[in-house]
């Protein structure tokens, strides 16, 4: 494993170049390229704002655009990275079949280029934060850490799914459906506080809120973003994520990353002949 990592490091520049390639290609064809990539989250934000403040006004979440956007941007990063990462090996089959390089570069580069997109979109979010006068404070220092944790988790997911996609080619299609379900199951456009603590389903009492966090690392990650960038729905200011809660998220994400990497490298030597 150490030698594999060393090799990955030796080829790191390829990852950088692939990220640059992705970004260049994405933004080259139109002057508005960058704005286009912002359009989707901004439009969604607008829709959710209209729905939850005008059409369903009883929710009464303050500064709703910030509330939604600070979750929507990380979610979009996750969703596009995972979907892109899943097909990254198969769609680069021509490269896989012709040149050797550490194959994990491809899903990793996919995640990283989407991460750069997230970074590029942050100024808009901050503009919104300033506009709505969210009282940002020192807890903002946690933001980079939260991002790193999310990148780790996302790369882990992308590695696992990219491997599956090589052997089962409909993984990408299935993931599109799953991502949609995942979006609704993650508190992105609704607050976690809306979830019941307990709910009896067919005679079994389920701790819904806890389960959401335990089973869905994205719920924890999104909640952390919201905690430092927005605060809470009761109007209390941003705060650092609870330590026990956040350390669990870190452990989960690292586990996913390590398992994903091991899983990927265990099968990657067969990619050349499976594609």
């Amino acid at each position, binding site marked *: 494993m150490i030698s594999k990592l060393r090799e990955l490091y030796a080829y790191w520049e390829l990852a950088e170049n*692939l990220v640059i390639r992705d970004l260049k*290609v994405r933004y*080259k064809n139109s002057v508005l390229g960058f704005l286009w990539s912002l359009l989707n989250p901004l439009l969604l934000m607008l829709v959710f704002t209209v729905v939850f403040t005008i059409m369903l006004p009883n929710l009464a979440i303050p500064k709703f655009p910030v509330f939604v956007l600070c979750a929507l941007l990380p979610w979009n990063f996750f969703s596009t990275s995972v979907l892109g990462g899943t097909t990254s090996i198969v769609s680069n089959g021509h490269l*896989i079949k012709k*040149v050797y*390089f550490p194959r994990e570069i491809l899903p990793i580069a996919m995640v990283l280029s989407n991460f750069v997109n997230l970074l590029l979109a942050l100024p808009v979010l901050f503009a919104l934060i300033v506009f709505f006068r969210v009282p940002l404070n020192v807890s903002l220092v946690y933001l980079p850490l939260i991002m790193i944790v999310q990148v780790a988790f996302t790369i882990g997911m992308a590695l696992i799914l990219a491997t599956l996609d090589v052997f*089962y080619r409909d993984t990408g299609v*299935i993931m599109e459906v799953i991502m949609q379900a995942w979006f609704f199951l993650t508190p992105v456009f609704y607050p976690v506080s809306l979830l019941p603590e307990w709910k009896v389903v067919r005679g079994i009492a389920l701790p819904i809120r806890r389960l959401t966090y335990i089973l869905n690392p994205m719920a924890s990650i999104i909640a952390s973003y919201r905690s430092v960038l927005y605060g809470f729905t009761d109007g209390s200011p941003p705060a650092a994520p609870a330590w026990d809660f956040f350390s669990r998220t870190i452990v989960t994400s690292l586990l996913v990353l390590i398992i994903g990497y091991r899983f990927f490298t265990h099968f990657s030597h067969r990619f*050349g002949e499976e594609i």
Partner: protein
Amino acid sequence: MAIIEVADVSKCFRMRPDRPRSFQDLAVNLFRKRPHFVRDELFWALRDVSFGVNAGETLGIIGANGSGKSTCLKLLTRIIEPTSGDIRVNGRVAALLELGTGFHPELTGRENVFLNGSVLGLHRRQMASRLNDIISFAELERFIDIPVKFYSSGMYVRLAFATAINVSADILLVDEVLAVGDQSFQEKCLEHINEMKSRGITIVLVTHSLDAVRSLCSRAIWLDDGVLRQDGLTDMVVARYLEHVHTKDEGEARLIREAERSASALEATQHPPPKTRGKSADQATSGSSSSPPQTPPRTEQGASVDPVARHKGRWGSREAEIRDVRFYDREGRERLLLATGEPMSVVISYIAHERIETPVFGLAIYRNDGLHIGGSNTFLAKCALAYIEGAGEVHYIVETLPLLEGTYYLTAAIHNTTDTRVYDYQEFAYRFRVHLGSVAERYGTIYIPAHWKHLPVVEDVAGDVAG
């Protein structure tokens, strides 16, 4: 020092027709009753292959299609991994497996050079120092900053090749890429490969072009069905390989030939030639024309692709018939494959159903594209035959076969001296092949047996010294 070491390497491809290729298949399989169980099929692309390549050596890998050459190269590049055995490569490998791999159409030439460099494991700084060489080699000074999607295919290939050879690898793997680009660029590539060779870069070349192997490689290995058959000096290995290919061809051709002969024998018994002995020739002619039209002899395998094979035909009054034409080599063995520069005899066996006065036997040789190479007949050669009756043979003896490598067709005929009467005319009916043998010439139409002599003029020098 061995820069590449391949030890007991085997590669087995497992073909699993039953394996689900998608989750959909997987789900469908769950609900299906246990399907007929299809066994995995194993395909051994390479078996226990071992060889080493020394630093600075140029190795050619030859073999028929499917012999494992490309698998071998892919193993060296680490695109696939061996099933068993060990491969050790000590140095940076650049593979010219397919040019332009990893070029992105939206990026400019310059950006693609950097991207391609990093695919091959080079750093930006290393690439930057080579950029000018690459651009000038590719002759793309004016176009390097436009997206490669606007490139012509020639520009694309030039840039790709220039990039690939400028990554300063220790080992260059080349797979049939020399067939790209126009003539002058190909020459440039060959020149460059030669230059890299002289710089001490190790080259492994996989190709069908034995010429390329002969001119570039000092050593060659021959793979046959995944097994290493021969490893040694290029000339020896190529010779052994050719010998193998030719004996195999000869064997196949002989089988076809025999099948054809027995078929024509069968045909002869079904449609016996008109027994016209003692009757007038006119009746014989009408008799033969009223018989069902002669089906042309069965075409040999591969013959149908030759343009002349389509014009195969037979006519004549058949008082005398050519029963067969055979080719013999120097030792008097019957062959279908002959060597340039070697003796060859063409034996025409005939049967005359009646006495025919002053017959003329003739033959003509055509290349498979229809070019008439030459021919002769007994009349022109002043080898007059008084008469023929019954069976016999006519020999046409060539001391030095001037034909170069290729496939040839022979037309054989029996007619009278004035050409007013044709007894049997078999156009393009016989086919034989020629390989180069020991003759080194390979360009043009025929081999001219000749030799060179050099006579330097020394008078001037002598004059200078005297003056």
